[in-house]
């Protein structure tokens, strides 16, 4: 036990003096993740605002007749009616205007005579702004249409309400906690899985392949310390580093959300109305139940142990820093992939067997727990599978440290 502690302490001390390890273990999880996530949300927010702010130009033929319809269109926000001397189609094609409308000259007459009015619209479907302009014109036309119809009905002595046959009123039964949990169910596993890997990678390589490359391994193996103790000390150092990264990344994300947070819109209806102009909104509550937190924390620790053991085994096998990096580099993808896949399947009902697959089971379990569904069977299988995997990986690492062929591989 004493030897394990000595080795653990030495490896951590060594790691803390190494800029690379320090970066991966502490600085990156502290700064990078919140930056990426806040940056992402800010960018989306910014784009939405930009889209709203954009003034689209619409050319109208026969503007001179000054009909109510043109008035309606020009009263749309961020829409400008422009005069154009060119051929309309050419103007749209050359993007001098975003949209062109041809209003029949006799529109007022036709309204009076209660005839069908046809408006021609010229758009450029490859121009985003053209789409936006079309949406705005559509809204104006719908509103105008309603007015015209109402007045027609009124002329016949019928109430305008007749036009509102069916209306939709929306209510979301998902609570804010559930929506928040769903968001976390995406974010948390990604963070934990990612930092359990990244936070342990550098130190894992440094204490094994690094030691081999710097030629200090042989003198370590010459001490009377048992191989299992050496591996355990190193393994615990890797786990400590990985766990530190996970905790730091979670704490910094939490602070980031609280401090700079996403604008959490209280009123869902409002955001639904806003979607017409392109603005979305979240209504999330990121609070987690204590019980869920406990399970998540316990499972995270187990996951960190599994990853650390696997990282260590692989980098012990490698003969140099570079070789280890080549092995571990792509391991990201293998680990992140299941998260992305599981997250992208809507209403995914995982078969029980998936809870026996390390990493994947963690993602699935977190998703369940974060929306308040506790399945003790799933929890037991996950915990058991992670524990067995960790032990297996440590045992493998010890075997490798006892194999002279690998140790003196050239």
């Amino acid at each position: 036990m004493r030897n394990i502690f000595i080795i653990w302490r030495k490896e951590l001390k060594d790691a803390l003096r190494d800029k690379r390890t320090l970066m991966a273990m502490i600085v990156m999880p502290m700064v990078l993740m919140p930056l990426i996530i806040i940056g992402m949300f800010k960018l989306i927010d910014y784009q939405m605002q930009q889209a709203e702010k954009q003034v689209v130009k619409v050319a109208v033929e026969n503007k001179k007749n000054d009909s109510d319809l043109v008035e309606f269109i020009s009263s749309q926000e961020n829409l400008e009616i422009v005069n154009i001397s060119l051929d309309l189609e050419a103007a749209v094609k050359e993007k001098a205007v975003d949209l062109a409308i041809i209003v029949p000259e006799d529109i007022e007459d036709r309204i009076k005579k209660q005839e069908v009015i046809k408006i021609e619209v010229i758009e450029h479907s490859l121009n985003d702004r053209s789409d936006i302009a079309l949406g705005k014109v559509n809204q104006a036309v719908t509103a105008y249409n309603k007015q015209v119809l109402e007045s027609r009905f009124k002329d016949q002595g019928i109430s305008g309400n007749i036009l509102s046959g069916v209306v939709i009123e929306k209510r979301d039964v998902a609570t804010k906690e559930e929506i928040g949990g769903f968001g976390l169910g995406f974010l948390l596993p990604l963070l934990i899985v990612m930092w359990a890997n990244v936070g342990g990678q550098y130190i894992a390589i440094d204490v094994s392949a690094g030691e081999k490359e710097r030629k200090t391994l042989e003198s370590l193996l010459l001490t009377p310390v048992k191989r299992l103790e050496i591996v355990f000390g190193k393994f615990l150092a890797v786990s400590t580093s990985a766990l530190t990264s996970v905790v730091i990344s979670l704490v910094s994300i939490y602070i980031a959300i609280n401090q700079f947070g996403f604008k959490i819109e209280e009123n869902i209806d409002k955001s639904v109305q806003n979607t017409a102009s392109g603005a979305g909104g979240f209504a999330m509550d990121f609070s987690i139940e204590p019980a869920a937190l406990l399970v998540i924390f316990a499972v995270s620790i187990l996951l960190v142990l599994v990853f650390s053991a696997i990282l260590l085994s692989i980098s012990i096998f490698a003969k140099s820093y570079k070789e280890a990096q080549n092995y571990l580099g792509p391991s990201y993808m293998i680990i992140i992939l299941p998260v992305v896949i599981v997250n992208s399947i809507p209403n995914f009902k995982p078969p029980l067997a998936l809870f026996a697959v390390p990493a994947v089971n963690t993602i699935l379990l977190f998703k369940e727990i974060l929306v308040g569904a506790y399945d003790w069977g799933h929890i037991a299988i996950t915990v058991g599978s992670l524990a067995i995997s960790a032990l297996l990986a440590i045992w493998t690492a010890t075997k490798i440290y006892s194999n002279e062929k690998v140790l003196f591989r050239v």
Partner: protein
Amino acid sequence: MLMNNRESLIQVNNLSKKFNGFVAVDSISFETKAGEIFGLLGPNGAGKTTTLRITSSILQPTSGSVEVCGCDVVKDSQKVRENIGILTTEIGVYDRFTGRENLAYFGELYGLGREQLDDRIEVLSKLLDMQEFLDRKAGTYSTGMKQKLAIARSIIHDPQVVILDEPTTGLDVLASLTVVDFMRMEKKAGKSVILSTHRMSDAEKLCDRVAIMHKGKLIDLDTVKGLLRKTKTVDLEEAFLKMINNK
């Protein structure tokens, strides 16, 4: 000589080592005693380092056996490692640690207590003339400083058997002399010292007995005087060349 009455600390019996079929060590036998410096000489690739690695339990023998202080290197490797201190050619030190921290780490792993360790570090740093740079980060050391640190590290636990594989490579005349003096002291203290080197002058000065290895085989084992007599030469270098060329 009275050597035969002394305690035998290393016994190598018919030791062979193969690397994927290549015979690096070919059934060699010898023993070393307490209070003697035993030389292991041979050209590059003769199998010296391999023999010493097996003796220190880092490599497994393919056949034959080695005993250190009465313990088998395979069955009782932990005991062997407690009693042996070996400096291999593969020196590396923890660059981000100071010399003192390097020594302390290994001292702790050898089970030394705090006070014992501090004393031992004091003694070794004086003996190998390391005080000046002991508290600097080892990454800033010169080759010679690293070599001294590596020597100190290998004997931090004051072992009964001291194996030095080319200890003076990279050392200047002064530093080499320090190491030579150190070996004499260990001999006087009743340790068994094995020296593997390419510097014939060192071997001639220091070694009580010398084993000559060539292509994995032990071609002769005798006192320096005995070897000179057999080959009718006046110094060890000549004797060595003659024996190697005759093979």
